[in-house]
Structures are given as C-alpha cells and as structure tokens.
C-alpha cells in the first residue's frame, strides 16, 4: 500500500495537480512530516510509524497547512492522511483554519496493529486509495473500567493521575484540534500558575470540555504526555456522550457544526438532565 500511496503522490506532483505534498519522510531513522515538492523526493515518503503533530508547528497555535496555504495561495496541497488526519482536516476546515478546496487528501487506512495501539474506532479515511479497512476498536473499551469505579474512587484515580502533570502542555501541543490563539489553559484567571502540579482539575478541565466536540481520536495527547496520564479515558467518554445525545462525530462531515454551537431545534438534546 505504501507503493500505491507513493505512486499517487508522484502522479499528483508530476501532473502538477498539486504544488506540494505534506507527508512523512524518513530522516535519521525517524519519520517526520515534510513538504515534498518534487516527484523524486517521494521515494523517501513513508507511512509509518504514525507520527504526531501532522499539522502543528508548536508552540505557535497556527496550523502548518494554513501557513502553507497563505504562502501558496490558489495552489492545491496534497496531504497524505490516515483516518484521524482527515478528520483533523475536516474539523480545521469547519473553523476556517484550512480551505479544503485547495487540499487533496491522499488517504490510506491503518492496519489492525495501529488501530489497536490507538484504540481507534474509525481507523480509515473516507476514500482510502488502497489497502484494507479494518474494523475499529469500540470506544467503550477506553473508559469501561473508569465508569465501573465508584465516584469517589474515580476522583482518587484522577487526583493521582493528574498530580503527575508537569505542565509541559504536550497534550495541547500535540493535539491537531488545539489551535485557539488565546489558549484557556494558559489563563491564570482560572488556575493558579507557576507551580507543579497545576491546580486539580481546573488545568485539564477546559481541554477535556473543548475536546468533547473536537476530539478526532488521534491519540497524540497521550503519546505526548511524559507522565502517561490516560487522557483518552475522558475524551472518548465525552465523544460517546456526543454520539448518544446528538448523533455527532467530529471530523466526518464538514457541513455539520458542533451541536454545542447550534440551537436545540437544530440539534435537539436526546436526553434532558433529570432536573429539566
């Protein structure tokens, strides 16, 4: 399948259907995102290992694609994308950070091992150019054990886990969906700053809340966390709630706005809180 992807990339470049392709390149025994501009360079294009931050250039909140699109107005850029990469693109387009009209998605599916490593429920883009789609891992697996705990044990669990946090902002930096120019996690109005660990649970709370309608299941937040904090237990749980309440999945339909931003007529709440 790598060969198929490379072939397609070479075609797109040599036929000038795209001005450049954003994909992974092998360098120094690593795979790192790179801007391929000539068909010959594509020989070094690789698909694995899955790399974080396909669209970020941290610590700036800008998305690399929006920087590239500004530098190459009117030109199409190809993006070699797994399922999560494509979902990220769609969400970025919703927030007008990327113009999808000038993006050519070269999608490919993840294999079973990768799907399991990411515990991903949808390990493929919408129109992969080859390979075999594998069934995803149901999302409940990530948070079943957490929900099985009693409330007070859950709190103890998170107190222990989040007290390991060293405020590296890795979770925020790695997330393709974290692009606010003024990041709430940085604002001292809500949490005391300058100390470790950051105030529990305020520091991570806002990000969890934002991820409820943005998380595209790439798993990079956990991969960037030096302290192995299992962030996805919460983000996946909130995703499942969004699905149950509104039938909403971030990253699948560029035309569908987040239900949090719409009225109750446009996106009715399927279960009301007990008090209402």
């Amino acid at each position: 399948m790598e060969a198929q992807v490379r072939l397609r990339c070479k075609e797109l470049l040599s036929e000038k259907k795209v001005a450049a392709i954003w994909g992974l390149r092998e360098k120094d025994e690593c795979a790192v995102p790179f801007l391929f501009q000539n068909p010959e360079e594509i020989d070094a294009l690789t698909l694995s290992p899955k790399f974080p931050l396909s669209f970020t250039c941290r610590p700036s909140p800008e998305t690399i694609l929006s920087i590239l699109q500004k530098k190459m107005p009117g030109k199409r850029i190809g993006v070699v994308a797994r399922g999560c990469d494509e979902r990220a693109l769609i969400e970025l387009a919703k927030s007008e950070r990327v113009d999808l009209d000038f993006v050519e998605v070269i999608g490919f599916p993840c294999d079973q091992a990768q799907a399991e490593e990411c515990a991903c429920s949808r390990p493929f883009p919408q129109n992969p150019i080859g390979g075999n789609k594998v069934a995803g891992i149901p999302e409940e697996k990530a948070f079943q054990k957490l929900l099985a705990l009693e409330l007070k044990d859950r709190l103890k669990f998170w107190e222990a886990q989040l007290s390991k946090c060293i405020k590296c902002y890795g979770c925020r930096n790695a997330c393709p969906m974290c692009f606010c120019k003024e990041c709430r996690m940085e604002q001292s109005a809500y949490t005391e700053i300058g100390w470790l660990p950051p105030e529990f649970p305020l520091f991570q709370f806002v990000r969890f809340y934002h991820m409820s309608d943005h998380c595209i299941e790439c798993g990079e937040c956990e991969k960037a966390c030096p302290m192995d904090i299992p962030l996805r237990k919460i983000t996946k749980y909130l995703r499942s709630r969004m699905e149950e309440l509104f039938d909403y999945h971030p990253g699948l339909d560029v035309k569908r706005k987040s239900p949090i931003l719409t009225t109750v007529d446009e996106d009715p709440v399927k279960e009301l809180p007990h008090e209402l």
Partner: protein
Amino acid sequence: MNDNFEPRIVGFMCNWCTYVAADMAGVARLKQPPNMTAIRMMCSGAVSPLYVISALKKGADGVFIGGCHIGDCHYQRGNHSTLKRIMIVKPLLEALGIDSRRVRLEWISASEGVKYAKVISEFVDQLKELGPCPLREA
C-alpha cells in the same frame, strides 16, 4: 451525613428571569434556605463551564444555573447554549468523580418565585445528602 452540614451553593442567575424570581421569592418571604450566593449574569448562556468547576473547587458544594425557558431568552438563543453545555459538563464531572447532581440547571421565569424557592430547597436537601464537595479537600 453530618447533620450540621450546610451546603454552600453558588447560583448563576439570568438577569431577566431567574434573578427576578429569586428576588420575588425573597420579597414575598417565601421559605427558602439561606445557603445561596447569587451571581447575576446577563444570560445563563454566559456561564462558562470553567465558572462551574472553579466554584466547586473554591468552596461551593453545588452550582445552580437559572435561565429563561427555551424560546423566552432575552438574547434569543443564549439558553440553548446553556443547555448544550451542561449536557457535556455533567458527564465530564461524573468522569472525574464528581457527582453531577451538584450542578443543577433550571428554567425559571421571572414570575416563578414559588418554583425558585422550591427548587433551591430541593437542591439544598439533595446536597445535604451528597455531602461536602470532595474537591474542597483535593
């Protein structure tokens, strides 16, 4: 439960409806518990989830949000946002280990002073059962 425990409630109340109802309940000397710290908001839709969690962290045992009924919002759709947000804040609190019944969203119009007093009373009873918010010791 400790019988002496008096839960502290922070109430974010919409200026156009719930706040008026609360006022009315006070003027009419309707029986209502004194545990409430009222914060007047121009719209329940201006209540950020961060205010909710901050309140619970800084000593509130419960957070009450009072807004206009759907369709009656002074700003047309502010309360739509409130409802949508609370639908996420509640499971987030639960996932973290905080009972989501500590956050209560009610639509209370300006004339519903009686409803207001009843709701707050119920809320206090519920919180007495739940006990002090565990975030306070955290």
